[in-house]
């Protein structure tokens, strides 16, 4: 038991934990997607998807680009350029918030102009649940990122935090990947 073991390197716990969380979250989203697909086309009455849905292309591009900006932010932090990190990080937050605004305005239109609420019919129930679940995860991500932004402004974020910030970016990438699935299911397949 005393032979020293050289080079004993195990994976870092942050990314491992985040991948586990992503697996669990993916399972939750899968169930909502299954429910959405199961009920697609089964609405005897009420607004139908093809009549009221407009694919939010611009806002989706915003969200997906935010994956790029967050990647640049982490790269900048690894190199130690805090300024650039702050700029890219801020851009990510803005893009994410824009996406949320897009969702909000789409919901406003659906509720007040088209009369589609969560209780209107099966489409309403599954649509608002799925998109809402995703949106809530965007909100959580934005809150976390804003917290990091605040610490950055206070000068508390430095190169040594790059790994931790990278773990958060994994979460954000997941949120974007989920949006790709949700977009496909709701705006392409479901119509």
């Amino acid at each position, binding site marked *: 038991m005393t032979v020293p073991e050289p080079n004993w390197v195990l994976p870092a716990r942050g990314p491992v934990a985040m991948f*586990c969380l992503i697996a669990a979250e993916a399972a939750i989203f899968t169930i909502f997607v299954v429910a959405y697909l199961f009920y697609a086309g089964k609405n005897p009455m009420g607004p139908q998807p093809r009549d009221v849905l407009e694919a939010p292309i611009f806002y989706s591009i915003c969200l997906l680009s935010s994956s790029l900006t967050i990647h640049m932010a982490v790269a900048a932090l690894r190199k130690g350029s805090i300024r650039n990190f702050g700029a890219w990080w801020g851009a990510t937050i803005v893009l994410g918030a824009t996406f949320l605004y897009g969702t909000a305005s789409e919901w406003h239109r659906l509720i007040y102009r088209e009369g589609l609420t*969560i209780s209107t019919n099966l489409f309403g129930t599954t649509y608002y649940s799925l998109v809402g679940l995703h949106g809530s995860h965007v909100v959580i991500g934005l809150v976390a990122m804003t917290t990091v932004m605040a610490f950055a402004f206070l000068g508390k974020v430095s190169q040594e935090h790059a790994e931790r910030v990278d773990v958060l970016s994994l979460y954000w990438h997941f949120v974007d990947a989920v949006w790709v699935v949700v977009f496909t299911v709701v705006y392409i397949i479901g119509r």
Partner: protein
Amino acid sequence: MSTDSIVWPRSESLSRPFVDQLHEWITTVDHKQLGIMYIVYALIFLVIGGVEATVMRIQLIRPHNDFVSPQVFNRMFTMHGTTMIFFVAMPIMFGFGNYLLPLMIGARDMAFPRLNAFSFWLTAFGGFLLYFSLLGANGLYGAGNAPDVGWFAYAPLTSLAFSTGHSTDFWTLSLLVSGFGSIGTAINIIATIVCMRCPGMTLGKMPLLAWLNLVMAGLVLLAVSPLTAAQIMLMIDRYLGGHFFDTQAGGSAVIWMHFFWIFGHPEVYVLIIPAFAFISEIVPVFSRKAMFGYPIMVAATVAIGFLSMSVWAHHMFTVGMSSNANTFFVLSTMAISVPTGIKIFNWLATMWGGKILFKTPMLFAIGFLFQFLIAGLTGVMLSAAPFDWQLGNSYFVVAHFHYVIVGGILFALFGAFYYWFPKMSGKMCSETLGRWHFWLFLIGFHLTFDFMHIPGLLGMPRRIYTYEPGRGWDTWNLIITVGVVFQSLGILVFVYNLLWSYFRGEIAGSDPWDAWTLEWSTSSPPPAYNFATIPTVRSRRPLWDLKHPQDPDWKYE
């Protein structure tokens, strides 16, 4: 040769004020203390769940009994199932996992100690919330009390139309909250095993308990989440006017069943796999032989993990799925019996050619092997869908799953208690009391659960608060209830043993069983930092290597 590591003397003495000790426990992030808290919490709920079962059995001792009303009875079986699965079995497995894993892989604590504490308190709060329903569930109509929709809460019985008041909501929310706790613990277990093993301990060299907890944690991540999703949908139906399970609006009751059982089946593997882990540690030590077929045991467990995600609709054979769907689930369910059987054979092969010591842990392990075999065989019977069309939803099923959970899991847990209690407390349990516990509980278990198969075969469905005379069920129900007496006595002896041994038991020393995994290399109880120096290992049984320097494991593995 000493396998003790250097132990710093405990700076706290027993005369510390109670408030200080309480504060330490409430704010602790130490895996050992959290482990013990999980276990004590689960034991308290075990007694509560047992009382609920006893009430039911008294009501069913004869036909047309009026010990409790139907409303109370229906709450009893709902609370009994929910309590036992979510607030006894899961916490106790997390508790043992928490306590043992860092010690067995040579680490100082879990990967995320604060997440560990947070997960425990979430689970604890969930249990409190469920039982608060007894007081707080009166809704608008003064209806509502403890939930009474069954532990699987089928739709549309759980819709507002059929479940007024807030009882169902307490069921939903308490499980939602403790579900987050479970996911947190699962993340912690995986991160600990993947990232914190001591030098030399490759995945192929870690104890089987670590492998099995790794698979269990993976299943928790994938299985608890569907339940969380379904419960969110149920809340949306009940409070936001959603129609997920609203059959009057085109919703589907069957999809709730699918979502629930996609959780529910892997869940039972979450419970049994740690039990397998205990048996895999106990049987080798008390047979004085290495585990037979370690790589196959790992492979079989991983196979069970994967397969368990594909069998869920065997709980739905009577629901009217197509013959193709039924046939598929028959195949997947029968298939999972193969790796499970392989594990039983490997345990037997470990005993074969050994020198078996019949200490209390081993008595319970042998009981486990006998009973888990029977439980598996009744499972195979249920997997034959047409046979399930008769046996399903009857007392045969109730007998089957209690055979797994009590005859299998609880026996393995008792074995684990007797095996690791010396490590956790520094004292040996009384062997005499242990034997009394074993035999009393064994008799009670078999009286109740062997004979419980028969009313099922004679047409008695489950979840009925009373039954008609003249169906041939009376005598069997009487015998089943009598078994409860012996089981209760056994549990009393067990609790007394734990308490007596804690205060008056023989000092255990670090390695009372002459065992071979790392937890036995440190003192009993271990110091807060577990090991003075992090060990380096070369084989699956580091202490065997130390004790047999001329014949170490790493030459043969």
